[in-house]
């Protein structure tokens, strides 16, 4: 067991090193395991993480990360497709079910939705870019919180994440409004979106089972 001081150091290193999505997961986990084992040994000699890995833990971790090989591109592609399909599935499903429910139970909105094909495609691509930026921003934020000498107050951290999330939710709402209408006009019953969502979800589920993406 690591003592309190070393545990705090090691957790920072663990998070910081793990947050590099484009690196080989196996190599990452193996080196983290080695660092832990080394630290456990050194701890019995009364050493701290700083005695073992140097005073500047962040730049030590940067050195380690730089030497971890990149993940096989094939796996990265599978993982990205999985994320994209599942994201679109959830958006489509929510859109379909909520739209249908509002119309059916409260008699608000339309039972069908009219949109332009061109604008629709732009909106979907824009959503994917927004999702990418959102994930990047959050990961960068987490990285920024590692190796702080003084712990930031929880409510400050909460506020920071809250603001980031609000900005992105705002962008998600504003973007479709800002995109001009162009392309062929299409009219679909709103429940169709729920159907498309379910189909996409099943596809992502099968992909996950087949390629063991999330385990």
């Amino acid at each position, binding site marked *: 067991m690591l003592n309190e001081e070393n545990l705090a150091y090691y957790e920072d290193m663990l998070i910081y090193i793990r947050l590099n999505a484009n690196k080989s997961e196996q*190599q990452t986990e*193996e*080196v983290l*395991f*080695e*660092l832990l*084992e*080394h630290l456990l*040994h*050194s701890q019995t000699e009364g050493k701290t993480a700083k*005695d*073992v*890995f*140097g005073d500047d833990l962040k730049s*030590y971790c940067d*050195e*380690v990360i*730089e*030497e*971890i*090989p990149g993940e096989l591109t094939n796996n990265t592609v599978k993982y990205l497709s999985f994320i994209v399909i599942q994201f679109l599935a959830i958006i489509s499903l929510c859109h379909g079910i909520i739209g249908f429910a509002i119309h059916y139970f409260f008699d608000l909105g339309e039972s069908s939705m009219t949109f332009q094909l061109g604008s629709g495609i732009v909106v979907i691509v824009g959503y994917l870019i927004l999702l990418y930026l959102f994930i990047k921003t959050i990961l960068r934020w987490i990285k920024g919180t590692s190796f702080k000498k003084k712990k930031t107050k929880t409510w400050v951290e909460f506020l920071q994440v809250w603001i980031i999330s609000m900005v992105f939710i705002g962008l998600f709402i504003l973007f479709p409004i800002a995109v001009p209408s162009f392309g062929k006009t299409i009219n679909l019953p709103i429940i169709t979106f729920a159907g498309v969502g379910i189909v996409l979800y099943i596809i992502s589920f099968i992909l996950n089972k087949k390629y063991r993406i999330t385990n």
Partner: protein
Amino acid sequence: MEISQRSQLFKGILKGCILSIIKMQPTYGYELSMKLQEFGLPDVSEGSIYPILLRLQREKLIIGEMRKSDTGPNRKYYQLTEAGQMQLAEFIHHWDLLKQPVDKIIEKGGN
């Protein structure tokens, strides 16, 4: 001392020493750093071997394998590959070429 330790020359020598120790027998990280200290390599920060081990793996000079150790926990044991053996032989050759002239020059200088 900190900066010169991280110089290319020192890194190269450390790399040669690591290959050399791994050649004796399959070795895991902590054991390797202990051996380096036993041989008296001055003030190598213990953790500095891990980036080097990662690089040696990437260059396919060593391979690491998770194995059960006698005392229980899994450990990653490193072994030299054929390319690693060749690299080590090359290092030893270069080192021999350097060592004697450098020693002589320093002696003449009256140090």
